[in-house]
């Protein structure tokens, strides 16, 4: 950036924000309008069906009563009415009430919950020849059918169907619409960010960099080709400009040779050379869109992977035919996590050998095959194997993206760049899990897996087109065990793993995935409400990741942020000590989301710096060990929480987990402080 181009004047300043704001506004309005229309027509079309049900039940009751009247029993002499109406009501689910009224609309017998606003049919109202008089009474659809004595209407049998069934379905659909909206908004933001990075931000950065070099007199540069839009035209003009200047320089040289005064002419050329450099550089200036280019493929990949999160155990039970039990339901999850853990170090080797782009393409193959296998699985074993294959792909893809982001991170923005990794993973996870449940509900498990495979294939296409090749490590690989020894020999890495990474995942698995749903159910919340409460974790984590990354880059105190986040998480889990469980639980979920979001980017950002130390393994290897440790924490968390739960109940488990977080965070902070003091003393 040149002096006249301060950050405040940058042409793309806040462009992403403004473009995303336009998209959010329009999408919300459009999806809201379509959903409103859909729900309205849904209610409109469903109402006659509900009324038909009330009519059918009513006609059964009317037939019986009419038979008695036809046999000569007077209307006011009918006996056992309350019992009969109660039996009519009890035989069918979803009925709100059954009322028998006389010709003047006064109630004679009732069963069920009659709405306060209920009014009988007025005397003298015309009775239909067939069917019923339909009305809305309070929150119920009321079907009234006449009873006749000698051709004269003597009473009405009212059957009411509660709107609650429709309302509950409409509520479900409203939540689904909100989920669709959230997913579309997040996905749109990712797509827009990707396009803006490639067509605006990166080209502007490149132009400003080239402009800086031109200002320093470097006329050997070349802008990259292959760009589209305005950036492409600017690049072409820039190359023409450089070519023109070089032609002028060539002309000067020619003029000098034509001159009879070679010494003086040479002096003139030397003067020019002192201020300007000409020629054609062998290497083109890069576009520098690398870091952002990894976010969209990662988002799409995680989105695809998480589509099945909500139903994997159910699908497993279905395939097991009810024979597998809880262990059967857990098997595909275990094989997936185990494969991710086992293949992460190997994935790091693949990334180091082939570079992030090729490693990504390699990793996407097993991921896609795994989804196909899951879609076609006929038994639990096949499904578990398919999930393990998906896990292998997941391990390679995530480590490749992390390494790519670490390699492409601009200086001073490592945490923000790596925070992009966690943000993309979290966004993909939130979107995938939410829409996966809706999709599976509508089209089934197998089609959802097939859709996941298509998304993975699309991700492959995107990586193939948008990712720059290269990035393989030139350092000689140490081998797995030597790398592990070298990584853990570095105290800062060992401290990070033991006091921050593993405890964070133990809390995530133990509290968010295991304890929180159980405790919320204990409070009497519905499944949907439990899901919404647990979703708070992801929703709070997303902005916290950005804040944590910004703070880490700004302050350079990533370690302190990690320790602070651990303390915050501990305090959040200790909240039941001070406030009631109804409030403490959601607050603890929010606190965990914020704390884990704050620590996510600084934790990753420490790695590239550590990998530069002497004898340290590559960044890819260290990241893979960090991921492996996190997986270990994820595996340990739920059973540890289950054991604590069995010993002392939910509140006790929360307090122990909170104490663990506080202790490890304080331990990490103290160890960092001692390390700093020792370094200062040594200096």
């Amino acid at each position: 950036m040149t002096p006249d181009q301060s950050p405040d004047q940058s042409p793309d300043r806040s462009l992403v924000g403004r473009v995303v704001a336009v998209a959010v506004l329009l999408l919300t309005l459009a999806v809201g309008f379509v959903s409103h229309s859909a729900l309205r027509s849904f209610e409109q079309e469903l109402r006659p069906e509900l009324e038909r049900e009330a009519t059918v039940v009513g006609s059964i009751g009317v037939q019986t009563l009419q038979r008695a009247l036809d046999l000569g029993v007077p209307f006011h002499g009918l006996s056992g009415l309350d019992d009969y109406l109660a039996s009519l009501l009890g035989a069918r689910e979803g009925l709100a009430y059954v009322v028998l009224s006389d010709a003047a609309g006064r109630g004679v017998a009732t069963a069920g919950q009659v709405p306060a606003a209920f009014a009988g049919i007025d005397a003298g109202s015309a009775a239909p020849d067939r069917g019923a008089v339909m009305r809305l009474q309070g929150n119920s659809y009321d079907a009234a059918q006449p009873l006749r004595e000698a051709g004269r209407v003597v009473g009405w049998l009212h059957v009411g169907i509660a709107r609650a069934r429709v309302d509950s379905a409409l509520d479900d659909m409203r939540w689904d619409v909100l989920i669709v909206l959230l997913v579309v908004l997040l996905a749109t933001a990712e797509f827009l960010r990707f396009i803006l990075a490639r067509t605006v931000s990166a080209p502007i950065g490149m132009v400003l960099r080239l402009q800086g070099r031109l200002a320093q007199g470097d006329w050997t540069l070349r802008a990259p080709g292959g760009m589209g839009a305005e950036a492409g035209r600017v690049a072409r003009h820039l190359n023409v400009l450089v070519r023109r200047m070089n032609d002028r320089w060539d002309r000067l040289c020619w003029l000098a040779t034509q001159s009879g005064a070679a010494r003086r002419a040479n002096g003139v050329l030397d003067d020019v050379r002192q201020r300007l450099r000409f020629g054609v550089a062998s290497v083109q200036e890069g576009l520098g869109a690398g870091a952002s280019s990894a976010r969209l493929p990662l988002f799409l990949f995680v989105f695809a992977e998480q589509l099945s999160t909500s139903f994997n155990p159910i699908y497993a039970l279905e395939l097991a035919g009810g024979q597998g039990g809880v262990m059967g339901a857990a098997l595909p999850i275990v094989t997936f996590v185990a494969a991710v853990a086992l293949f992460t170090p190997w994935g790091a080797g693949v990334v180091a050998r082939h570079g992030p782009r090729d490693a990504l393409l390699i990793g996407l193959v097993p991921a896609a095959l795994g989804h196909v296998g899951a879609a076609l699985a006929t038994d639990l074993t096949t499904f578990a194997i398919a999930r393990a294959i998906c896990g292998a792909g997941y391990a390679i893809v995530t480590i490749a993206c992390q390494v790519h982001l670490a390699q492409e991170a601009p200086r001073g923005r490592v945490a923000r760049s790596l925070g992009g990794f966690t943000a993309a993973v979290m966004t993909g996870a939130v979107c995938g899990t939410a829409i996966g449940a809706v999709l599976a509900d509508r089209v089934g498990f197998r089609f959802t897996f097939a859709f996941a495979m298509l998304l993975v294939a699309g991700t492959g296409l995107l990586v193939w087109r948008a990712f720059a090749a290269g990035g393989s490590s030139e350092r000689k690989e140490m081998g797995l065990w030597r790398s592990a020894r070298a990584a853990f020999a570095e105290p800062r890495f060992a401290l990070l793993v033991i006091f921050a990474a593993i405890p964070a995942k133990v809390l995530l698995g133990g509290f968010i995935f295991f304890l929180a749903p159980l405790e919320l159910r204990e409070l009497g919340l519905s499944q949907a409400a439990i899901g919404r409460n647990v979703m708070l974790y992801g929703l709070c984590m997303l902005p916290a990741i950005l804040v944590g990354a910004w703070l880490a880059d700004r302050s350079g105190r990533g370690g302190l942020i990690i320790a602070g986040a651990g303390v915050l998480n501990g305090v959040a889990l200790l909240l039941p000590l001070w406030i009631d469980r109804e409030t403490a639980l959601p607050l603890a979920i929010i606190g965990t989301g914020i704390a884990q979001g704050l620590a996510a980017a600084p934790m990753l950002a420490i790695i590239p710096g550590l990998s530069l130390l002497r004898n340290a393994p590559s960044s890819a290897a260290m990241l893979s060990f960090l991921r492996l440790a996190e997986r270990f924490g994820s595996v340990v968390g739920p059973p540890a929480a289950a054991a604590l739960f069995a010993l002392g109940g939910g509140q006790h488990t929360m307090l122990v987990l909170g104490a663990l977080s506080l202790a490890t965070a304080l331990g990490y902070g103290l160890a960092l402080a001692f390390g700093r003091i020792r370094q200062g003393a040594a200096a």
Partner: protein
Amino acid sequence: MSGGLSFATRLSGVLAVMLLLGCGLAAGLNYLKFERMLLEQQARVLEILAGELGSTVENSLALGVRLAGVPGAQALLERSRAAEPLIGGLTIADADGVVLFDTDRQNLGTSLPQQRFEALARQEAWRFRIGADYGIGAPIVNGFGQPEGAVLLRYDRSAVDERLAAALLAMVQATLLALAIAVPLGALALHLVTRRTRRWFAAVEEAMQPGAPPAPLAAGLQAAIGEADGVLRDAEGRLEEIAAEVPEELPEGPQTETLERAMT
């Protein structure tokens, strides 16, 4: 092809696709849920009717009549079918699947596939499907709690399809209206919010043309170009002056080599 499109157009394209996707998903997923609910509701109503027919037959059995000899059973089925247009056909079959009464008299005496009776043992209403036809079974149980047979009610989903078509039409209309307004509005809004950036690109492009007027947005670039231009122009002037003068003697040596190097 897309290389010529401006970035604002590309963004508009993405927004249009996402609007289509969002509205399509909202409409499509709602439609699928709606279809399931409507089919379920229709089946609930018909289940009540089948159950009521079963109860009527059971009342006769309670009087000691055999299932095959229930008086008025054929007429009851035909009356019920005529009263409810949703019903495609009604059958009363014994526990072995032999058709005793049927609205389609050609079926009398024939045997039904056993899989339609699999749920009979549970003594609860069940549902089945044969090709495009849907069906509901209601058990007929005698006074000793033994299943004697079943009432089988066949129906098709044409009534539901009509309602679904109406709902789908409403959703498609809403989607098209939303897209017709949102897509141009989005393109316009994006055009406006990207104005500053597009101006910058245009200014940079313009600044690189020979003899371009001063552009404040590309001042840095113009300064760099101007400086190089000045240096080269000065050198050109000086060299032309030298060329116009009397040639000097050039000694053989490094200076001549430097000139030759510069040429290459």
